[in-house]
């Protein structure tokens, strides 16, 4: 418990400007990352991306290190991304999927972690449907935990790859106007991006219907400089980045939306809306997309869309993080 505290205690927007914690054991969220640490990671990511462009896409950095991909939720693309990242660093990678079934209660989660530990795992990459689950694992695992998405809470590697992509394309993050539109309240991508983007000095607007957002004050209490909007038409004006979130169909079934049709009309990212943004505006999406719902097919494949680049950069970012974690353990 104390070691967990050590890595997370510096967490707060107020302390972000201070120097980064010297040795990070886990990556659970971006809330405890300083601007400097993010910049370092983005620099490491650039080196990793260079490795991936070589004919032989592999370096021996993590030889002898065992990485376990522990995925309790279906996510083929994220799992493959982590797997490729670990392999590119020459780590031993094992995949463990157990969606839902016997692993319902934490007793089993803790048991699983203890078993993986006894088997010699060094890094656990974990995806879990419950917010906060990686914090529980971090308390019971002596190695490093890399959060690959927990419930609605955090998806730090996604946010870092988004930052890398923005920086790569636009040359900076600071001062950019970023609109995050969609199912904010249920989105771990939105939360981690809020930490990352605000730490880097971007101006963030959250845009969603109230049923997918909640009262503005609940967001601005933690992220004071964030703007809340219910009008995509208004907030895309002059935007540098439009970040679209996936809308799960269950939201409509749960009564949070009258219909997908209306959602698409009011909050879908279409060509007309992108046109109102800055000419260089990037259109992003963490995938998988519901084309025709939150994003129109022509936008997804347009020149301004960087959705595929995000996927490519994801491998490099994950390499960078594993590399840094392995340095510690």
């Amino acid at each position: 418990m104390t070691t967990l505290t050590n890595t997370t205690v510096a967490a707060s927007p107020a302390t972000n400007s201070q120097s980064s914690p010297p040795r990070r054991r886990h990556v659970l969220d971006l809330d405890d990352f300083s601007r400097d640490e993010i910049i370092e990671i983005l620099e490491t990511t650039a080196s990793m991306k260079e490795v991936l462009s070589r004919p032989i896409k592999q370096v021996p950095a993590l030889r002898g290190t065992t990485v376990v991909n522990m995925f309790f939720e279906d996510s083929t693309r994220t799992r493959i991304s982590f797997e490729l990242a670990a392999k590119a660093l020459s780590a031993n990678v094992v995949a463990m999927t157990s969606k839902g079934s016997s692993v319902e209660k934490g007793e089993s989660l803790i048991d699983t972690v203890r078993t993986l530990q006894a088997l010699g795992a060094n890094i656990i990459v974990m995806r879990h449907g419950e917010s906060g689950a990686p914090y529980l694992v971090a308390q019971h695992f002596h190695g490093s935990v890399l959060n690959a998405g927990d419930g609605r809470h955090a998806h730090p590697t996604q946010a870092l790859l988004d930052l890398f992509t923005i920086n790569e394309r636009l040359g900076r993050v600071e001062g950019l106007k970023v609109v995050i539109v969609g199912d904010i309240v249920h989105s771990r991508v939105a939360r981690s991006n809020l930490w990352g983007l605000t730490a880097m000095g971007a101006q963030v607007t959250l845009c969603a219907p109230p049923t997918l957002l909640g009262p503005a004050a609940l967001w601005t209490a933690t992220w004071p400089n964030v703007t809340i909007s219910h009008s995509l038409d208004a907030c895309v004006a002059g935007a540098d980045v439009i970040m679209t979130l996936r809308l799960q169909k269950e939201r409509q079934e749960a009564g949070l939306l009258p219909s997908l049709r209306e959602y698409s009309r009011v909050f879908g990212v279409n060509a007309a809306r992108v046109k109102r943004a800055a000419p260089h505006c990037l259109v992003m999406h963490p995938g998988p997309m519901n084309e025709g719902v939150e994003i129109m097919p022509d936008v997804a494949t347009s020149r301004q869309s960087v959705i595929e680049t995000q996927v490519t950069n994801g491998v490099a970012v994950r390499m960078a993080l594993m590399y840094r974690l392995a340095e510690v353990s």
Partner: protein
Amino acid sequence: MRYLIKNGSIIDPARRVATVGNVLVENGKVARVIDLADLSTEQEPLGEGIEVINARGAVIAPGFIDLHTHLREPGEEHKETIATGTAAAARGGFTTVCAMPNTRPPHDRVGVVRQVLGAAREGGAVRVEPIGAITLGREGKNLTEMAELVEAGCIAFSDDGSPVSDPAVMRNALAYAAMLGVPIMSHCEDLKLSHGWAMHEGVISTRLGLPGYPAAAEEVQIARDIALAEMTGAHIHICHVSTAGGVALVRAAKQRGVHVTAEATPHHLTLTDRWVLGSLGEPNEQRAPTGRGKRKHKHDPELALPGWLDPTKIAPYDTSTRVSPPLRAEEDVEALIEGLRDGTIDAIATDHAPHSHVDKECEYRLAAPGISGLETALGLVLTLVHRGEMDLVNLIAKLTEGPASVLGRTPATLRPGSDADIVIFDPDYNWVVDTGKFASKGVNTPVNGQRLKGQVMLTMYHGAIAYRRGNFGGSTGILQQASRLEGILEDE
């Protein structure tokens, strides 16, 4: 055995007495209360076979009554038994605990109630008053045989934890209970609004991505139950009020003359949802006075010590903070304290809810809600006194006279002739919560490791010592001041 409890500060809210004096206990009863100013008694011989308990520096009060305790027996003895739960009660200064019916099987038939009362007689350290289930199987449909359950000893009815969702069933329960002259204790939660909840819906849940239990889910149900009580003329008791809106609803209903009473728990009166953030938040955020209300905040320098109720000592998403209703926001805590002070809230009740490791060592939202509260109740609520937010006499009233009146009882008191159910506590005793020393099997509390000020020294039930801390009160030949006794007493 006879006892002379000497030189303590006697606080007996029911008799509006607060004085320094002695209490003589004989044959399980309070024999005499002797004001120190009354010098005539000084020379009187005490006779043989008497133990003198030196209570100098400590408070002597009627034993506390807990309206809301989960003893888990029968059915979940791995979490708590009547023996361990009542031992925990004695350590917390409680001489009466009202046992909630959500056992397995529940208190929905006479057989179970008799079993509970029998186990309490045999192995209970203090009095157990069973609360009957409102509906069979606590399923919210068919009323239990309430008349027979009252005959068997039930003092109230509740489907605690599984609130009666159907308003027509609640209406009938209230009307029927009114005939029997017992209250319906309502856990007010609209299950549709709170569906899937992990914690209080607010700033912290938004940050942590945890599904929220909005304050309105409690408030709409309180409003409903008040309306039904008003219609039926029944006595509704609102369990563990946790929201500012809930306090306001109860206050307004009382002003209209509705027979409504309410309780609040020590944890809802002292902790907020910020505890779920644990070490992720700023260290040592102290509760700042809001300026609302007229109370003055005393600045006790000890309260600023880092150890004083510091949420950063626990990990983020620590499941010990998960409780139903959830720990609420700062404004809610303020409103609860205000409600306690102005009489809107009648009683402090622990909602002692022991759970095993298995129920708590898991993902946050999946953890069983509940805090093991009997042994930290006094230390927590005395925080309000030390902060100057509540006076000691009024606070003790909320643990004695208040809950007694909810049950329609003659108030617990130290009047000569009344049962010798007595607590002696040192309001200034500094200690650190160590769940390893709990009598309760439930070690699920977010305040483990926290420093509290105020501790029970001795609990007497029916004139016998049910709990004694160290050798408290023992005759050492010198005048002891209890609060200076740390070295002698230690934490056992």
